Each structure stands twice: as C-alpha cells, then as structure tokens.
C-alpha cells in the first residue's frame, strides 16, 4: 500500500480523500492556490504545498507544477478528486511516464471515454444504444447548423471533454445556435482546457440514471447499482438518490450488466460511472462515462456499505476486488443534496462572500461531506459547491423526512445557498411520490422564491434582530473562544430609547 498520496484538488472532495487516506494509514498531502491558504483541506491535510495563483489554470490545472510537488513530497500516487485534472488523459499519461500512480483509469481508457465523441462511436460499434446525434466535432458552424436541422430542434450542445453540465446548452431554435455554441465552447475551454462541442437530439423529460462500476487491474468488474440523478438545474445535478424509483429488479440487472460491458469495451480500470438516459418507455441510452469519483458517490456508499475512495486507492495499489457481484446488496435508501453557493431566488447565480454563521446538521443517518467553516471567505475562482448533505433511511419515506429535517437544521448566513430551495424539492409532493424527471425544477419550482408567510415566525425573527442590535454595542469586548461576559446593555443604556422601564 502507498505511504503518501498527493491530492490534486480542493474543497469537500479533498477533505473526503484526506479522511480515507487517514483510515488506510496513508499520509495525505494536498496542494492549494494562493486564495486557498485558509481552506479546510489545507487545515486537515498532513502536508500542504502552495501550487500557484488563484486561477485554476495556474494552480489546480497546472500539470508541471503538480508533478513537481508530488516529487518533492515523495508521494507515490495522486488522487485527482473530481473536476480539474480528474479526467485529463494527458495528466494521467504524464503520471504514468513519471512513475507516479494516477488513482483513476489508465490514460488510454481515459482518452477514449473522455472524448465523448470517440466513446459514442465505440459504444455504438459494440451494440450499446446511444442518443441520436454527432459522432465527430463539426468542421465549421454550418456543420452544426446542418446537424441541428437534421435532428430537429431542440438540440443539446455538449462538451466533448465534458461533465458536470459545463459547456452544456439546450438550443430551442436556430437563431440561438451560434451564441450558444460560442458560450458553450468558452465554458468548455475554461473548465476542461478543450473547447470541442457536439450536438445531440434533446430527449425531453427523461430520467437520468447512472451505474457505479469498480474494475480492478486483474480483470474483475462489479457494478454497485444505480443512482437516480434527474433533479437538475442548469444541467447539473443537485439531488441524487438510490435506489431509483424507476427501475424494476430486471431492468436494474440489465442496465448494470450493460454498464459493466461499456467499461470492458473501453478497457477501463478503477472506479467509473456509466450514465444512461431513461425515456418514458423505459428505453435506456448510453450517455457517457464519468471517468472519476462522482460528486454523488456517497449515496452508493451508504446503501452498499462499500467505501468507494478506499476501493479506488486499493485498486490503484494493485489489489484485487475482495468481493464479487453476488456479495453486493442495496440496503435502505440514500439521498444527497448538493449545497451550492448560489442564489436559487435569482436563477442560481453564484454567490460569494464570507460565511458569517454556520450551523451544521447532525444525527443518526446524516452524513455531511463539507469543505467550509464559519468565517471562511468563499472564493470566486472555483466551482460553487460548498458541501454535500447525504442521508440514509430504512426506506425512501424516512430518507425524505430525514433530509427535510437535516436541511432545516442547516444554517449558513452571509451568502446565499441552495439549502432553502432543496428543502422545497424534497418536501414537494411530486418528489415524495418518486416522480423525478430532468424537467422537475423548471416544471414545479421555476418561480420559487425564498421566504416564509409565517407572520409569527417573522415576529420572532424581529425580536431576535432587536435583541442582537442592543447586545451588539461597539464598546462590548469579546474574548477569543467564548461569549463575552459583558455588562448588560439593558442596564448601561445607550442610543436606544427603552420602550418601557424595568
């Protein structure tokens, strides 16, 4: 087993990998950019190396610098997390050349599945159903224009190197095509360093169902069942769950076996996810391979009892899988909500700033993978994910109730977050009924606006503001680590006129 791993990422996923390393007796080194000196992953790591200035291209995407740090730290392996270099075949190849283990698939498989177009060609050839659309990048604008006409609007623009919804756009009519392509290409370049995009027929109101797969370096391969990821805003998942309410045991087995075949065809190893679209008639189409640890991996962990990061590390170290397909069972139900620094009342615009107050949910069946802390300034340079709240329950109903309660306990002040919006999602009758499609949010919660009509609750809030104001006098001294023992302002009086005497 490795003695030290370098984690080439930040935020909650870096923290997640640090904890896994610690549990396996491995030292965890991390990199950080200049704006991330105070970030949680730096605090919790065993070692932390400055990688460069804030912009990702000069830090978390800077391959030379990262390799140099891995050498200096004497790390035998690099865990890329998700995003940044996680699915970059050049980075994986460079690690291979340098004799550093890349904790992920081999670079050839990564190059194949990472190029969504090449993957589409390969899978179609292997008899796996794909969505109608382009199988190569268009030579010029007119190529896209023609293909769009052939498919019929609406069409979907996708980044060939894509994932996480970056670079993705739905185009409803021809006039929108050019600006959408340009914006998609710019976003793809910024996110992946590759501006290739292609068009697919847009399938309306599908369900997004993906299968988690583990493949060791010895030819053993298992799937760990599905994740239902249909609740999306801006083509990015915000709520995921497992099991999916849409699958029968028979369909689950068929899709699981197809997922394994996809990765076998690709010559894939380590952890990977095969995404499918499921249409209203329960036909499924291969969408793409996410050649990394997924953001939503915890729901699989909670229901199967398998720690996916441990498995990634063990597989990378050359170990054989210690279980086979028959050993794996789903138990209970798990749901994940993604907590983003975004304002759901204003079209999910990013929201940065200082976290003035933080109260985190706890209790049985509640897991929080978080990258934040009170007083932290959320930087504007990176993905706005703050944390993931994951709950497990004996059944879907209990899991929904638990998620609702946990979201209510979760308080972040100072920046806007998706918390109040997510509470609406999991309490929505359609969600509770298990009717989740990718159009859920635009159909049911498009006009959602934060706020409460409860006048009595507001009166309590008013009283709290007044109490706070009186007690927040500038001459009050606070001692580090404790609430100030201070003279009561009710006694000392001040610029506030007391409405009644004592």
């Amino acid at each position, binding site marked *: 087993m490795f003695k030290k791993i370098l984690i080439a990422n930040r935020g909650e996923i870096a923290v997640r990998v640090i904890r896994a390393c610690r549990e396996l007796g491995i030292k965890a080194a991390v990199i950080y950019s200049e704006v991330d000196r105070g970030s949680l992953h730096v605090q919790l790591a065993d070692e932390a190396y400055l990688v460069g200035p804030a912009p990702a291209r000069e830090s978390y995407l800077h391959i030379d610098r990262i390799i140099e740090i891995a050498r200096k730290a004497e790390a035998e392996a690099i865990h890329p997390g998700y995003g940044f270099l996680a699915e970059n075949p050049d980075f994986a190849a460079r690690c291979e050349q340098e004799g550093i283990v890349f904790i992920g698939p081999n670079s050839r498989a990564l190059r194949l599945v990472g190029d969504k177009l090449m993957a589409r060609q390969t899978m179609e050839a292997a008899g796996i159903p794909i969505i109608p659309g382009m199988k190569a990048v268009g030579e010029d604008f007119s190529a896209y224009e023609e293909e769009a006409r052939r498919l019929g609007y609406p069409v979907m623009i996708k980044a060939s190197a894509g994932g996480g919804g970056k670079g993705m756009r739905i185009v409803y009519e021809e006039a929108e095509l050019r600006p959408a392509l340009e914006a998609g290409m710019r976003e793809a370049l910024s996110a992946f360093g590759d501006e290739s995009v292609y068009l697919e027929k847009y399938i309306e109101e599908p369900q997004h169902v993906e299968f988690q797969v583990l493949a060791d370096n010895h030819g053993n391969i298992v799937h760990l069942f599905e994740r239902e990821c249909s609740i999306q805003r801006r083509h990015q998942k915000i709520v995921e769950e497992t099991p999916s309410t849409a699958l029968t045991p028979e369909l689950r087995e068929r899709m699981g076996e197809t997922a394994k075949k996809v990765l076998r065809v690709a010559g894939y190893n380590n952890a990977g996810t095969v995404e499918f679209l499921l249409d209203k008639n329960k036909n499924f189409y291969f969408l793409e391979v996410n050649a990394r640890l997924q953001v939503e991996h915890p729901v699989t962990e909670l229901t199967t009892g398998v720690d996916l990061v441990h498995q990634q590390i063990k597989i990378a170290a050359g170990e054989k899988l210690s279980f086979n397909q028959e050993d794996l069972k789903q138990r209970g139900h798990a749901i994940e909500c993604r907590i983003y620094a975004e304002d759901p009342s204003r079209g999910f615009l990013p929201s940065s700033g200082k976290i003035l*107050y933080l109260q985190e949910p706890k209790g049985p069946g509640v897991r929080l993978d978080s990258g934040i802390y009170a007083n932290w300034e959320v930087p*504007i340079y990176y993905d*706005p994910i703050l944390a993931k709240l994951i709950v497990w329950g004996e059944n879907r109903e209990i899991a929904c109730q638990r998620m609702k309660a946990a979201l209510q306990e979760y308080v972040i002040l*100072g920046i806007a977050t998706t918390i109040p919006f997510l509470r609406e999602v999991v309490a929505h009758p359609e969600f509770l009924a298990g009717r989740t499609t990718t159009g859920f949010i635009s159909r049911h919660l498009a006009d959602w606006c*934060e706020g409460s009509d409860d006048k009595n609750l507001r009166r309590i809030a*008013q*009283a709290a*503001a007044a109490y706070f104001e009186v007690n927040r006098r500038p001459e009050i001294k606070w001692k580090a680590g404790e609430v100030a023992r201070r003279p009561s302002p009710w006694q000392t009086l001040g610029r506030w006129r007391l409405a009644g005497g004592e």
Partner: protein
Amino acid sequence: MEMKLRHGAEVLSFSLEKKEGKYIYRDEQGTMTLDIKEIAAGVLSILADEKSFLIAVTRDKDRFIVAVEGCRFEFQEASGMAAAGREETAARGIIAVKAPMPGKVVRVVVGEGEKVRKNQTLAIVEAMKMENELKAAVEGVVKKVNVAAGELVDSEKTLLELEATP
C-alpha cells in the same frame, strides 16, 4: 427599544423591552413574552410560551439576516431605506448595469456611445466557472464603460451606464 425594519415592501414597527428577566415584544398585532438566551455570539434560544426557537442572527452593513426554523429573513434598517431611496432618484434616466455577483469580466461586448437593443448582451461576467451574460433591460445608448476584460468586480460596482431611449 423601538425599532423599524423593512422586510421586502413592508415596514415593521415594534418594540422589545426587558422585564423581570424576560423580554416583552409589542407590535400592532399584540404582545408576546419571550424567554431569550444567547447561547453563543449571534445564536439565540427563544421560548415563546413553551414553543422553542433556535435562531441565528447577524448583520451585514444595514441588513439583519435572521435564520429561524430553516427560514431566512432579511430586514433592512429604516435609516438605510432612506439612503437607498435617494440614490435611486439621482440615477433616474440612467441605468447602472451591475454584476449580479462578484466575479471576473470575461468580455465587454459594447463600446461607449453604442446604441443597444433590449436584451442585447452588454458584457459577460464569470464566477465560479459559470458565465453570465448581462443584457440590456431596455433599448438605449451606452453612456459609459467602467471596466475591461479580466477585471475583478463585486456586485456593488457599476460596470456600464445605459441611457434609455425615451
């Protein structure tokens, strides 16, 4: 103390006073006796007749942000309201285009003096890897461009000024 807070369009007038270790809240709806305990800086446990509320409260400039039972209320101080009003009056006719969030200017699409249609893209601002296009709210003329590509901006800064075509 008496207090006036703005909540959305409403102005809320009320008072809070201390009496025998408890707090009396009064507004036109009536009176509540509250048992308030500050359990940490900005965190209050309030019992209102035996109902229990756990509340986090903080200030950001002239706003109070209060979280209670998973609901967030933002109140504005009455004095802050007046100032906001004045600013609005001064800018009549000229529309200040601000970034919707702090971020980096990717591109300024229009130049000073340029005529723009309604919904035309004026500039693109990127934050947290998402691009956001700022569009003209009305037909008009670009009076002033205050930023250039690559510049970091916060949500207070006026990026461009637009004069509406009457």
